[in-house]
């Protein structure tokens, strides 16, 4: 397998944690809430899923527990920011630190243990194609994530639910005036974001690299938040961005496999460096951000 085939085959799986977490954050931000705790929410989801799967609960249950656990922690964020109108940046950081601490606490006795991942399912015919065939051999979670992406895009763009979420983020006062409960929409959006971050962490810990290690999320939650900016709050672009980051995180492995003499630390920091560069490129176009950005993002709502 050459480097391109290797990257194509693994890209979607590597992209899945970024994608799931970024979709969750997208919904929260669309509703006007900036939750910076994604890294901690992912870490908590990862450890919960790992514990369930390690004790024979199965992957399905692992994902459910991870989703519920991280959603519960994100509700704490909702409680502080919506209930007490706390600064969302500070509250997000607190949730992130708390989530990482809890994951290390729960995962202490599971450090460096492994579980079995999930089998890959091949699409007939398409998976036989040369070079790009690997794209069509993926585990079930990748397929579900792709379907979820599509569904979320349709919901945000074309349904009343999507419209309400966007209205609450764009102009909460107006949304309130026409009778929608800004607070309840935001609570649900935050919980959804938390659950998705939990799924993302679960995927990282029980499917992608089925092992638990403290700090294994390694900045992916932060990159997911950056992805929402890269994608200028649009589902399709976030998906493309997640694929880019899936590819970038594989490039390190591919480069090592080809025997390239580059320090491994440089390859490990590649996703972070790419994030910094892309963030600069996208943000430099202020009109683009203004056009698509969420007007009330990060601001507390007061009637």
């Amino acid at each position: 397998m050459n480097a391109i085939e290797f990257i194509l085959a693994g890209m979607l799986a590597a992209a899945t944690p970024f994608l799931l977490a970024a979709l969750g954050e997208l919904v929260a931000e669309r509703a006007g809430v900036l939750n910076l705790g994604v890294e901690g929410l992912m870490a908590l989801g990862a450890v919960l899923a790992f514990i369930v799967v390690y004790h024979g609960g199965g992957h399905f249950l692992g994902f459910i527990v991870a989703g519920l656990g991280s959603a519960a922690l994100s509700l704490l964020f909702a409680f502080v920011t919506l209930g007490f109108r706390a600064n969302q940046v500070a509250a997000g950081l607190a949730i992130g630190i708390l989530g990482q601490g809890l994951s290390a606490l729960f995962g202490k006795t599971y450090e460096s243990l492994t579980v079995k991942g999930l089998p890959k399912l091949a699409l007939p015919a398409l998976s036989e194609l040369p070079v790009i065939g690997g794209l069509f051999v993926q585990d079930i979670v990748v397929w579900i994530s792709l379907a979820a992406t599509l569904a979320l895009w349709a919901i945000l763009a074309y349904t009343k639910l999507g419209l309400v979420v966007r209205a609450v983020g764009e102009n909460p006062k107006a949304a309130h005036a026409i009778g929608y409960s800004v607070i309840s929409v935001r609570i649900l959006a935050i919980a959804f974001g938390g659950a998705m971050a939990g799924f993302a962490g679960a995927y990282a810990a029980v499917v992608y690299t089925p092992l638990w290690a403290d700090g294994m999320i390694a900045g992916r939650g932060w990159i997911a938040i950056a992805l929402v900016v890269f994608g200028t709050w649009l589902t399709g672009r976030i998906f493309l961005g997640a694929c880019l980051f899936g590819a970038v995180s594989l490039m390190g492995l591919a480069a090592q496999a080809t025997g390239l003499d580059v320090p491994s630390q440089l390859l490990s920091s590649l996703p972070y460096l790419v994030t910094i560069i892309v963030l600069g490129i996208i943000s430099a176009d202020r009109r683009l951000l203004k056009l698509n950005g969420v007007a009330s993002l990060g601001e507390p709502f007061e009637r």
Partner: protein
Amino acid sequence: MSVWFPTSLPTLVRRERASLAAALGAPVVALGGAIALNLGLYVLMGRDPAAVVYAMLFEPFLSWASFSEVLLKAGPLLLIAQGLAIGFRAKVFNIGAEGQFILGAIFASAIPVWFPQASGQWIWPAMLLLGAIGGAIWASLTAFWRVRLNANEILVSLMLSLVAAQLLNYLLLGPWKDPNGFNFPQSVMFQYDAMVPTLITGTRVNVSFLITLGLSVAAWVFMQKSFMGYKLQVGGLAPRAAGYAGFREGWAIWLSLLIGGFAAGLAGAAEVAGPLGQLQRSVASGYGYAAIIVAYLGGLHPIGIVISALVMAVIYIGGDNAMVSASLPIAAVRVFQGSLLLAYLIAVAFVRYRLEWHRTAQRSLP
């Protein structure tokens, strides 16, 4: 609305003026709340809460040896938090102090690593200065990205911290690894003159603690008394007003980040030239993140930060004690830090709001 929040629930009502009592009480209430919450957690984990309380909150004060360790721990937290708070007040959210701290440690180590035989009283001051410059340079990347490219400083500064951690690993596993160090990822031990002189004999507290206290006074003067500090705060509170008054936003971002990077870099330099005595991985132990909590808990006020840094240092040292005597995992310290900040954010809401229990429905009608 009524489905989610029945009207019998209390609501927050904005106070006419901020409550000073609540502002002073918030950190105390938050600390009490966080202690109670975490003790509950330890009980759930099957630990003896009395043993934990004793180890965490009393033992640090019981001997001069352990209290001096509290002071040693408080130094970097205090220094970094003072720098960060200046930025936070101007609404510049530099959360990459960890990376700036690491770069400070690296820059400072360059002298003893490259000139291990050099001697003279100039070495440690030069290291501290070089470290501070290193931290400021690392922070200036974030400032450039924010001012010139409009990129979010939270994300960029955090990403740069992750890169800094990799850079540290690279140096310690590669070019800066001690050739006689049995393959451990650490630099050579520094020579005598590359160490900050001890302040109190018999302890590890060194002269950098005095520098930190001095810079805290400088931070207080800057924020409360100087026109520059005033301009920064106006920019944070009312960006539009600041713009009309001719205070440039880009200037505030550069200044905030450079101050934050300078302080964090200095703290990193003091860490390698002080308690560590060499560049090693453990220098990246999360001071940069903990200092964010210290800054908030101190109400972003230079004097409050001195107190909150001491409190956080007690929690660190106490956590170490509890790890030994009550077999508490060290991750419990991180949980404590996170819950402490959350509790503070709840408590501090009462500075600007008060709870009202009988908010009648009619009042919201025209």
